[in-house]
């Protein structure tokens, strides 16, 4: 079944109730700046800003519609670190590897990033961390 062939930490998602204020604080206090070239929209229910750092980026997300998985989790957990996204070489092989070890993983689906696909590992196996696997083409 091989291994997962993890490439890198693709990005870290941070939930916020006020995107403008969060962005201002991250820029002023931590020195990170938003990059419009990373401006893939997340969909109508979100305001999002991405801040590149090294070969990764932070994704600040504010839910603006009171529905959906992200909004529900945000209600439960509040502002702060929300999830991590791990880039793998081959998403189908990664899912097969995990399922072979009895770990629940969602079926692959298209990502907001052109050409990329994603799947989520069930949080019951990850010690409380919301982990997305992403394969970029």
């Amino acid at each position, binding site marked *: 079944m091989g291994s997962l062939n993890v490439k890198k930490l693709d990005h870290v998602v941070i939930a916020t109730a006020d995107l403008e204020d969060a962005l201002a604080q991250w820029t002023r206090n931590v020195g990170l700046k938003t990059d419009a070239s990373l401006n893939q929209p997340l969909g109508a229910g979100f305001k999002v800003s991405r801040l590149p750092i090294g070969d990764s980026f932070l994704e600040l997300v504010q839910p603006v519609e009171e529905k959906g998985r992200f909004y529900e989790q945000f209600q439960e957990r509040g502002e702060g670190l929300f999830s991590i996204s791990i880039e793998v070489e081959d998403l189908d092989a990664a899912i097969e590897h995990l399922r072979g070890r009895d770990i629940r993983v969602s079926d692959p689906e298209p990502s907001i990033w052109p050409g990329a696909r994603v799947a989520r590992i069930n949080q019951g196996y990850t*010690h409380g961390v919301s982990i997305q696997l992403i394969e970029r083409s």
Partner: protein
Amino acid sequence: MIDKIHHVGIAVHDLDEALKFYRDTLGLHVHAEDTVEDQGVRAALLTIGDSEIELLEPTSPEANMAKFLERKGEGLHHICFQTEDVDGDLEELKEKGVQLVDQKSRAGLAGMICFLHPKASRSVLVELATPLEMYRG
């Protein structure tokens, strides 16, 4: 000031259990493992691309990490950014009036480190680290 995500810290009840997932299932390499007595944690650092995942288990019920687990349960705890000059950054942050946990850098698993107050970045605990091989203090 900062170059990359050095690591993402994850609070866990039992480090050995967590290693079964992050090391054995995800296949990440453990490159450091240590107990940091003054912080009350037993920690392991696992390589993920150019960054790391840090698993943190409290060593006593009085440790801050134990209180975090009691309050929020297992999951993402902090994000650490690598910088060439943690002391210079601290001086700059103090001049700007940024809220800090540490007024001076101290030795941690990632090198010489300091924590900013979560209020400085809308409820995200941020750590800055200069690895010892880069540190000129």
